[in-house]
């Protein structure tokens, strides 16, 4: 049975984990808390459809459940969760590449319907164009550069969080971001 939202909202991530180990139902709080963010992240990093992203997220949370006792309290729990989801998403992407499936996921423009009412049509158009362009360039970037850019600029993560998610030193994160920005800029000059 799902734990009601008002109970979940009153619990910290670590409290949810502690309670989940006693009663599995509490685990749904963790899923619901991160679902939206992680679905978006999976779609960005693995170019997955909604259905694929949902499957990846389910599998990731089963892994999170199995490793619940391995939670490192010195890490931000969100970083630990992102790490597992990231690994699952990347392995999906590699599998997809090895099977030669089409990676060009149709651009989901439904979210432009959610823009505030006072957004000018030109503004919305410009926003959509930039978003599509970003998606297009990211798809062309090597994996190691694409993932740092997504985490830094689309997920707004700190260097420390990125280092914990990708399990690489912070210095390496900085170097990769720097290189990724240069390549991104180069591609942006001749996007198509």
């Amino acid at each position: 049975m799902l734990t009601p939202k008002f109970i979940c909202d009153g619990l910290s991530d670590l409290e949810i984990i502690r309670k989940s180990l006693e009663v599995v139902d509490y685990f749904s709080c963790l899923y619901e808390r991160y679902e939206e963010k992680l679905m978006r992240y999976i779609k960005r990093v693995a170019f997955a459809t909604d259905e694929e992203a949902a499957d990846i997220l389910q599998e990731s949370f089963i892994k999170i459940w199995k490793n619940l006792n391995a939670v490192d309290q010195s890490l931000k729990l969100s970083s630990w969760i992102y790490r597992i989801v990231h690994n699952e998403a990347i392995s999906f992407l590699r599998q997809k590449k090895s099977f030669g499936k089409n990676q060009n996921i149709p651009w989901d423009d439904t979210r432009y319907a959610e823009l505030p009412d006072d957004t000018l049509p030109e503004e919305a158009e410009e926003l959509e164009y930039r978003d599509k362009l970003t998606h297009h360039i990211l798809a062309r970037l090597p994996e190691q550069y694409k993932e740092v850019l997504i985490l830094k600029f689309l997920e707004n993560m700190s260097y420390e969080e990125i280092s914990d998610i990708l399990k690489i030193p912070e210095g390496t994160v900085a170097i990769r971001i720097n290189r990724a920005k240069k390549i991104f800029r180069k591609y942006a000059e001749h996007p198509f």
Partner: protein
Amino acid sequence: MKPSEKLLQTIRERDIKPVPKGYFILRNALLWTGFAVAMLLGAVAFSVILFCIQQTDFDLVSHLSHSRLEFFLGLLPFFWIVSLIVFLVVAMTSFKHSGKGYKLETGRLAAYCAALSILLGALFFLAGGGRELEQAFGVRVGLYESIQEKKVKIWSMPANGYLSGTIETAGDSTITLHDFNSKTWIIEYADAFVAPVVALEAGEKVKMIGKQQGDGRFRAEEIRPWGGPGMRMRQK
């Protein structure tokens, strides 16, 4: 059905249980033990390398021709150098997989591990561990050729000008030497350079460069202690 409900249902249906905490504690303990053991073995390998370097006569290189130089290079402790590298890689891998090991850059981690191995290895060498281990390896491991065996080989080529052994008697210009192949030699050393640490007395182990004069006769040009300080230094 909401995805979170589906998740709970899957966990229940498949009866998936979280892996016990003990497993992670044990895994972490094994990684740290692996790191510590690899570091210690690396230090031991380094101490033997130091011992081998101490025993190798690098100043001899200038006396050697190309083919003999290759033979001389065979004295370098490649087995221990490879062992040191392997142990350092194992230590680094264990560290990288433990807790927050990934935070440290590979280059820096390699430098720290190497520094720790050098420090511990130097201490072990100073305590005589390097010599003991190298000799024990030579005795117990059939395939392993100890540095002493290699050294005896290179210094038992009188026809090429290299001879070694233990002094039996010493006179003003000649020495009777019992070489490591149990052959007795009469050595003329009147014009030879004798290293100050060498005591030309019975029982002193020496090695010499010179020319073979005939069967059982050798004219020495340089006489040096066999290894480490000579008897004279030890007596001080």
